C-alpha cells in the first residue's frame, strides 16, 4: 500500500493541535544552604508549619522554622544531591501518614513507605502526624485491664487500657523484652499493636520482627521502623506517625497498644535537629520544648468514652540507673507510672528485672481484675517486708522464727515472680500460682524447686482441672468456693509430688 505524505502530515498536524498541554501551577522557593539534613529555603512565603516540601529528585522536607524571608526545613531523605539554588516546591500537604487496616502486619517508615518488601501502602486514607490529643470530655477513666502476661507487672504494677506506663532501665536489662511480651500476649485479646522503633540498630529491629512473627503477633501488629542510619528528622517523626496510625484504630472503637522504643533516642534526634535549625539550646543542649514534645505525644494515649483506647508503653534508657536525669524525670512526670528495671536484679538472675519497690502504676489499680487484686495485696505486703528484713539481716543479725518465716516466704515469692521471655501467662494462670505463693503452699518447697513446682502445678491444672481455670477466668474473682477448691487442689498436687 502506498503511503501518502500529505496524509501523514495531516495526522501529525491534528495530533499537534490537540496536544494536551499539561500545565503545572505550584509555589516554589530556592535553596539558600544545606547543612547536615537541614536546608534553608528562600521564598515560600505562604508555606505553613510542618508542611511537606519537595526537593529535586522527589526528596521530601518538613518546614519547621518559618522566618521572615526564608523557611528552615529538615530533609527526610538523602540530602547529598541537593544543591544551593535548587527549586523547592510546596506540596500543600501537612506531614501525614497512610492509616487504616491495610497497615496491620506491615513494616513501614514514618512517611508510610513499606520496608518489608511488600506492596506499596494503599489504604486510601491519611492522617496528619501531629494532632491535638482528645479533650477532657471525650475521655473516660481507665477501667479495663491490659494484660501483659508478665506476673510481676499484672499483679503489682497493673496496666489499664488508655494508660501510659513508662519502662525505664539501663541498657541490657530487658526493656524491649517486656514490651515484646506484652505485644505477644495481646493475641486473641482484640488489641491491635504498634511497635515504633526509633533509631534502633537495623539488626535489632529485624530480630524483633522475627520474634513477633514466630509468635504469630505480626497478624495484629504494625511496625514503624527507623534505624540508626536514618536522618534525625525521620526519627523525630516516627512516634508521631505511629500514634496517628493508632488514633485511626482508636476512633474506630478498637483498643491499641503502642510501644515507643525508645524516647531517649527520640529526644536525642530532636536535639540534633533543633541545634541544626539553630534553635536555642537549653539544659544538656536539649531545646526548650523537649518537654512539650513528649507531653503532647503521650497525651494522645487515651481511653475514649465512646469506646476505643490507646495504651502507650514508652521506653527510656537510663545511664547507670540514673532515673533522675533530665529526660527520664520529664517522662516519669508525664506518664501514669513507671516500670523500673535494674541491672543488679538482672545480674542476680531475677528476670524480668523489675524493681518492684520503685515501680508504680498510678491508675492501673482500678482496672485490675478482682481475682488478681485479691492475691496482689498480700503479695505486695510480703515483698515489702521481705525487702526490709533482707536489708536488715545482711548485717548478720540473729533472727527469730517469725522473721525467718517471712524471709523464706519472700525468697519464694521473688522466685515465683521470675518468668522466661516470650512466655506470657494468661491471667487465671497467674492468679493460681500467685495464690499458691501468698497462701503459704510454697513455704516448704525448696527455693530452687519453686519454678518446677509452678510449672508442674499449671500442667496439673490444665490436664485435670481445666474447670478451675475456666471459672477463675469467668468469675473474675476468687469466690469462697474457688478458694476452697484451689486450696484442696494444691494439697493434692503436693501429695502427688511426694
Amino acid at each position: 500500500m502506498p503511503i501518502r505524505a500529505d496524509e501523514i502530515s495531516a495526522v501529525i498536524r491534528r495530533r499537534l493541535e490537540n496536544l494536551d498541554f499539561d500545565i503545572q501551577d505550584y509555589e516554589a522557593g530556592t535553596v539558600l544552604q544545606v547543612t547536615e539534613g537541614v536546608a534553608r529555603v528562600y521564598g515560600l512565603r505562604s508555606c505553613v508549619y510542618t508542611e511537606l516540601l519537595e526537593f529535586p529528585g522527589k526528596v521530601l522536607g518538613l518546614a519547621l522554622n518559618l522566618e521572615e524571608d526564608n523557611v528552615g526545613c529538615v530533609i527526610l531523605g538523602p540530602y547529598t544531591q541537593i544543591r544551593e539554588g535548587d527549586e523547592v516546591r510546596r506540596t500543600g500537604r501537612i506531614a501525614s501518614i497512610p492509616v487504616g487496616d491495610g497497615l496491620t502486619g506491615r513494616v513501614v517508615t514514618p512517611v508510610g513507605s513499606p520496608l518489608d518488601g511488600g506492596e506499596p501502602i494503599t489504604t486510601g486514607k491519611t492522617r496528619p502526624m501531629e494532632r491535638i490529643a482528645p479533650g477532657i470530655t471525650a475521655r473516660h477513666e481507665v477501667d479495663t485491664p491490659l494484660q501483659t502476661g508478665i506476673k510481676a507487672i499484672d499483679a503489682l504494677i497493673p496496666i489499664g487500657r488508655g494508660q501510659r506506663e513508662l519502662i525505664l532501665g539501663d541498657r541490657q536489662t530487658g526493656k524491649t523484652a517486656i514490651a515484646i511480651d506484652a505485644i505477644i500476649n495481646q493475641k486473641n485479646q482484640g488489641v491491635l499493636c504498634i511497635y515504633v522503633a526509633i533509631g534502633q540498630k537495623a539488626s535489632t529491629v529485624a530480630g524483633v520482627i522475627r520474634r513477633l512473627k514466630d509468635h504469630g503477633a505480626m497478624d495484629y501488629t504494625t511496625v514503624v521502623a527507623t534505624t540508626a542510619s536514618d536522618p534525625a528528622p525521620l526519627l523525630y517523626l516516627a512516634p508521631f506517625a505511629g500514634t496517628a496510625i493508632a488514633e485511626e484504630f482508636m476512633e474506630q472503637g478498637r483498643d491499641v497498644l503502642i510501644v515507643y522504643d525508645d524516647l531517649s533516642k527520640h529526644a536525642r534526634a530532636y536535639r540534633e535537629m533543633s541545634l541544626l535549625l539553630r534553635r536555642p539550646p537549653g539544659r544538656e543542649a536539649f531545646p526548650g520544648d523537649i518537654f512539650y514534645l513528649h507531653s503532647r505525644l503521650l497525651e494522645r494515649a487515651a481511653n475514649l468514652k465512646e469506646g476505643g483506647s490507646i495504651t502507650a508503653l514508652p521506653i527510656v534508657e537510663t545511664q547507670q540507673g540514673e532515673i533522675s536525669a533530665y529526660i527520664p524525670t520529664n517522662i516519669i512526670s508525664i506518664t501514669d507510672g513507671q516500670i523500673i528495671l535494674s541491672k543488679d536484679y538482672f545480674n542476680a538472675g531475677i528476670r524480668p528485672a523489675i524493681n518492684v519497690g520503685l515501680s508504680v502504676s498510678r491508675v492501673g489499680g482500678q482496672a485490675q481484675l478482682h481475682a488478681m487484686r485479691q492475691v496482689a495485696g498480700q503479695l505486695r505486703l510480703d515483698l515489702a517486708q521481705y525487702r526490709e528484713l533482707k536489708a536488715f539481716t545482711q548485717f548478720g543479725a540473729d533472727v527469730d522464727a517469725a522473721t525467718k518465716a517471712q524471709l523464706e516466704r519472700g525468697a519464694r515469692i521473688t522466685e515465683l515472680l521470675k518468668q522466661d521471655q516470650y512466655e506470657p501467662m494468661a491471667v487465671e494462670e497467674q492468679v493460681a500460682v500467685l495464690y499458691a505463693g501468698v497462701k503459704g503452699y510454697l513455704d516448704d518447697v525448696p527455693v530452687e524447686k519453686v519454678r518446677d513446682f509452678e510449672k508442674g502445678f499449671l500442667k496439673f491444672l490444665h490436664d485435670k482441672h481445666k474447670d478451675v481455670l475456666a471459672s477463675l477466668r469467668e468469675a473474675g474473682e476468687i469466690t469462697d468456693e474457688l478458694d476452697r477448691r484451689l486450696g484442696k487442689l494444691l494439697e493434692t498436687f503436693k501429695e502427688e509430688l511426694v
Partner: protein
Amino acid sequence: MLTERVAKRYARALFTAAREKGRVTEVAGDLENISAAAEDNEELRRFLYHPRISPAVKKEILEELFGARIQELALNLLVLLVSKGRFGILPVLSRIYQSLVDREQGIARAAVASAVPLDDDHRKRLTAVLRRLAGRNEIRTDWRVEPDVIGGFVAYIGDRVIDASVRGMLSRV
C-alpha cells in the same frame, strides 16, 4: 540574611521620606541607576569600599559625581550609607525599595521564560492572564529567552510558578 534585614529598614525609611516629598518613582529610578553604575564600574566600587579614604572625602566625590543628577534624598542616602560603612547593601535596598513602590502603586512583577522571543500578541494575552492571577491592576513582566525551556513558557509571579513548558513536561515523563 542580615543584609536583607538591614536593607529593609533603610528602604522603609527612604520610602516614607520619598512619599512625603512626592518623589517616590524618581528615587526608585536613581537607586537603580546608582546600583547599576556601582556594579559596572570597578573603580567606583573600589573607591567606595576603600578603608583609607575617609567618609568626608567620599561624600565630596559622591556629591560631585551625582549631585546634580539625582534626587537630594537619594544623594543623602548614599552619603549616609557611606558614612555608616553600609554601601554594600545598596543592590538589596534598591530591590526592596522597588517592591515597596510596586505595592503602593498596585503593580505586580512577573517573569516569563520562553525558548524563543514571544510576539506581541502572545505577550498581550499572557499579560492578561498573569494580571488576573496576580490580582493587581498592573503587571510588569520581564520577558526572558531561555533556550532550555525547549517549548512553551514558564511564568513566575512571586513564589508562584506556572510551568507550561516542554522542559517541565519532559521532566515529569
